[in-house]
């Protein structure tokens, strides 16, 4: 099944006695916009951390297959290796390099996969200059793509929430990934920014061919964006399907109502 970009089989992740992920099985097709929803503490971010090498689940397997058909096991790999293989991510509480400018933030992503090149850097040789030039060009393209060109020289910490999210997306894209993991990209943004964000995410998939895996609480956004969803509760997958199927799934409604996260539940109906 080489059309799968992520193939997660029976993954269990424990912290001491706490089971964070319990026998999670899911898969994502290449080019798919897939969403993971669930109440707070359901294990969504743990799943992301497992997919990017931050956590190493004790049981199960996670396979990532790139477009050349090369497949690798993620479990036990360090985050920078997973990133090099073609997995990019954003963070729930956006983690920018806050003292850098927007431009520098993205440039870090654009050049992070090259070798060390310390001697070249000290001598500023022609190869180094060429490299710099290439990274600058790519950074400018991405700034344009996410619409941050005007804020290129703004310090990241003084960007608005919406701009930070776009910055993080651009920084992730700069590493030339095949799949982009977005952890609650709409958190803290206003309705207008949400619409722009949904548009941007769709463009990432359509124009760059990058698959999207999404965690989001905003049901309107998820339902309009995702092609397929998994619902997580207490670390287990309780439902899977298209937005329409999920909306009418009694198990899902029960889970949301039972978790007192009622606002979301109403939107689900």
């Amino acid at each position: 099944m080489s059309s799968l970009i992520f193939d997660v089989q029976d993954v269990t992740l424990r912290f001491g006695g706490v089971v964070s992920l319990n026998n999670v099985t899911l898969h994502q097709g290449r080019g798919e916009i897939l969403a993971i929803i669930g109440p707070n503490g359901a294990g969504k971010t743990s799943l992301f951390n497992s997919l990017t090498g931050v956590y190493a689940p004790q049981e199960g397997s996670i396979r990532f297959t790139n477009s050349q058909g090369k497949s690798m096991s993620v479990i036990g790999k360090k985050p920078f290796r997973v990133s090099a293989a073609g997995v990019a991510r954003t963070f729930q509480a956006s983690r920018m390099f806050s003292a850098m400018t927007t431009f520098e933030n993205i440039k870090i992503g654009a050049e992070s996969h090259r070798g060390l090149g310390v001697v070249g850097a000290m001598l500023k040789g022609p190869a180094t200059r060429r490299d710099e030039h290439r990274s600058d060009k790519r950074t400018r393209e991405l700034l344009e793509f996410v619409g941050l060109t005007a804020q290129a020289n703004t310090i990241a910490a003084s960007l608005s929430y919406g701009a930070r999210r776009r910055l993080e997306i651009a920084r992730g894209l700069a590493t030339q990934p095949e799949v982009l993991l977005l952890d609650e990209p709409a958190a803290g943004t206003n309705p207008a920014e949400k619409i722009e964000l949904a548009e941007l995410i769709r463009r990432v998939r359509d124009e760059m061919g990058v698959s999207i895996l999404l965690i989001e609480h905003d049901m309107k956004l998820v339902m309009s964006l995702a092609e397929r969803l998994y619902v997580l509760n207490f670390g287990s997958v309780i439902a899977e399907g298209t937005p329409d199927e999920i909306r009418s799934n009694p198990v899902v409604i029960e889970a949301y109502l039972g978790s007192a996260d009622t606002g979301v539940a109403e939107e689900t109906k």
Partner: protein
Amino acid sequence: MKTFFQNPRVQRSGRTALILLLIIVMTGPEGSGTQPTAGFTGSFGNHMSFFGLFYPQRWVVFLLLTLIVVGLTSLVKMAHRWWIERQRAGNNAVARVAKTLAATKQRARHRSTRLSLYAVALAFALYFPHLVTDQSWQTLVVQDVLVYLLLALGLNVVTGFAGLLDLGYVAFYAIGAYTTAWVTGSLPTPPPFGVHWNTFVAIPVAIVFAMLCGVLLGIPTLRLRGDYLAIVTLGFGEIVYLFINNSYGITGGSTGTNQIPFLSFHLGPIKYLWGLIPEPYYYLTLAFVVIFLLAFSSLEHSRVGRSWVAIREDEVAAESLGIHPLKYKVMAFAIGAASAGFAGVVTASQTLFVTPPTFTISFSINILVLVIFGGMGSIFGVVLGGLVVQGFVAYLTHSPPSIYNAADLYMYLGALLVVMMIYRPAGLFPSRRRRREVSQVEAGTAPDTLQVEIGAHRVQEDV
């Protein structure tokens, strides 16, 4: 009563008085185990000259000095307030001057202004030996200023760029100096292949050696949290010191060696011998400083430099982008070690002797002071800070005032570190980025990277 002590004015005056007392005692005469109060009583009771005008007791002099300082600062403050008010009131002349100032500041950031500034500085440095012809001064400038600049620039890569506190930095300096002694055949250990090599051969050997030690120490320890790293490097520095001080058969033990030959250059028809005159050493060391400056400033603005900043600011995010934190940290450590090793060669080949007392942990602290004082991570700041602090130290060494004892140097440097951390944690001339980083951590809008422990973030994210 309580409200009296909580009055900020009273608190400020109290603080000033305490600092004044401390300064009086710090600069006073010494005491001893049999006369423990002599230092304190002498600090107040002894007489000293007040600018040659009269000869009162010390406390009178210091009181007068304090009054002068307080008076001057309040004058400056008043002038500043007046200035701001005038600017607000829209005074034309004031506004024009303010505008010119802002424009000058802007222009100072231009590349061309900077380049011409550097050219002036370099020209001054080249002309310096003709300005100061006293050889004892020239020697001091080489040994106490330029070599320290080399070391500070190297430590700045480790502490400033990569944000790692390395207190065993002196160990690499020692490794460089002793490698020189070894390669030139001045140690009890026979030199490599039994040949007494030229000192220039020692340069690559020392760099490689120091770098290797840096990597070997770095790989296991750089996984640790920042404060553990500081202690482990401290211990490493102490071990190297113990080793060179006690291995009589290998390093000459506590007496070290004074057999290192003069620096000489001999390639075909070109011959040059650096002798007892300090001037040629001055130019050689200056050339090294310039090379370090150029190399490290391109490093700072390269991909490697940016990756260090990324790791320093948010290691988790950097790792998620594909940056291998350990690799970059080890690299910074190795570059720092190599610089210190190189500086060791320079020192050894100039002083012609190496002895263990040069290489105590205190030396690391001295270099750290230079980096912190000027502004960690800012090459310009480090150079300026190094020049100011070491220039002052050289002055004290050359013509010590009656109240100064060389052994007190670290007392002053220690106090300086505390004062800097309280009032100017980013240094006197910080890079704009470092200033932002410090203020962002203080405001709680950015994570404090020293806290990040590889592996720790694995549980800190929400589950």
